């Protein structure tokens, strides 16, 4: 047996691939579900926090800034472990996929808030004044004048950040979430063969490569003309 066929036999073993394909596909579904939940809840919470921050209530804003800074400074894996091992001690038992969702959604919310807030700040004061002078209330100005302009500006950085954080679903394997990497790792140790890991890697590429390429397109499409 030549080197090449031995390589194929080890890393792309047909029998192992066929046996563990269902498990990997199950992992793909879990990854997509968690990723979708993280993206929707994270971005909505981030937007909500940025809107609340625009009302400039000091006590509230201090809280928001501390929250954002904390979730930007701490590594997601540290947060996952902290929540996973910490919560049961205060009587809250969350399933591990919920822990992963909660942590990644909060991390994304923190980054998204910063991006939305920077977008709101970038709208010149004259816009606020002009809108208010036509009789719009503060809330109406924010919703109908400022946010539509600000959001367009936030799309490229938000896209990149969202992709980077969504990839973090792989961290779930550390707390036994049955996402792609978790399924691939346990299949690898059961079969003592690296083929499941190669399948997992391929699954991540199939899922995320189109998203990264689409993100590149979004970046040029919505780039701010200087």
């Amino acid at each position, binding site marked *: 047996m030549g080197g090449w066929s031995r390589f194929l036999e080890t890393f792309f073993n047909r029998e192992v691939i066929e046996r563990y394909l269902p498990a990997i596909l199950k992992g793909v579904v879990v990854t997509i579900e968690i990723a979708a939940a993280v993206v929707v809840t994270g971005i909505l919470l981030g937007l909500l926090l940025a809107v609340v921050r625009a009302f400039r209530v000091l006590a509230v804003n201090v809280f928001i800034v501390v929250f954002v800074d*904390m979730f930007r400074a701490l590594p997601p894996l540290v947060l996952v*472990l902290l929540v996973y091992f910490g919560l049961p001690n205060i009587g809250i038992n969350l399933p591990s996929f919920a822990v992963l969702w909660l942590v990644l959604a909060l991390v994304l919310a923190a980054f998204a808030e910063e991006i939305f807030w920077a977008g709101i*700040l970038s709208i010149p004061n004259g816009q606020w004044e002009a809108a208010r002078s036509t009789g719009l209330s503060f809330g109406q100005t924010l919703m109908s004048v400022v946010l539509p302009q600000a959001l367009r500006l936030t799309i490229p950085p938000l896209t990149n950040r969202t992709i980077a954080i969504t990839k973090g679903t792989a961290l779930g394997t550390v707390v036994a979430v049955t996402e792609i990497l978790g399924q691939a790792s346990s299949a690898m140790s059961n079969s003592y063969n690296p083929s499941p890991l190669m399948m997992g890697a391929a699954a991540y590429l199939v899922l995320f490569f189109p998203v990264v390429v689409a993100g*590149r397109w979004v970046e040029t499409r919505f780039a701010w003309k200087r």
Partner: protein
Amino acid sequence: MEALIQTFFNPGIIAASWPIVRAGLWNTVLLSLLVVPLGLIGGLILALLASVRNPAVRWPLMAWVDFFRAFPPLVLLILLFAGLPFAGLELGGFVCVAIAFFLNTGAYYGEILRAGIDSVPGGQIEAARSTGLSRLQAMAYVVLPQAVRNVLPDLLSNTLEVVKLTSLGSVVAVPELLYQARQAQSLTYNPTPIVVAAIIYFLMLWPVVRLLSRLENRALAGR
């Protein structure tokens, strides 16, 4: 309240686990000092190659960068750590972390530096070349300093992410801060060491986060 303190900020456990956690902190600093320059070098190579405005060079480079941007770093790390031994190559956790970071963060740094180089007007290179500077000299003395300045917030933000990512080393038994904290946690059956590690990460990185949020707000507001 008392019970909460005993669980999450247990003074006895903090004292007992401190030597273990401190060793981890030191290793995290060393690891960061290794992987940040590694990623920067990888990124610089990619960006310099991409500045050759030839589609035959640029497109494969873009594919390379997107490949590693699409690949979760933890998957890359486990592939190197657990997959390569099947090909008869056992590298150890530390080397695997170094290679994975060179590839992954190199792609991110490369993308940022490429954008920086693109942001420098072409007239600058022509002017520099016309004064007799070689291609390389023009790049090193004229283009790169301006490019780096233009993308400094992005470079800093990526560096923050890289330092945070060193915590992945704990998965392949590199004795950095998180790994040491988890060791201490499993010895004491108490989450206090992980809380301590989180506080250390926060104290270390919080100034960077503050600085970044100022730079970012200023960059957007300045348009």
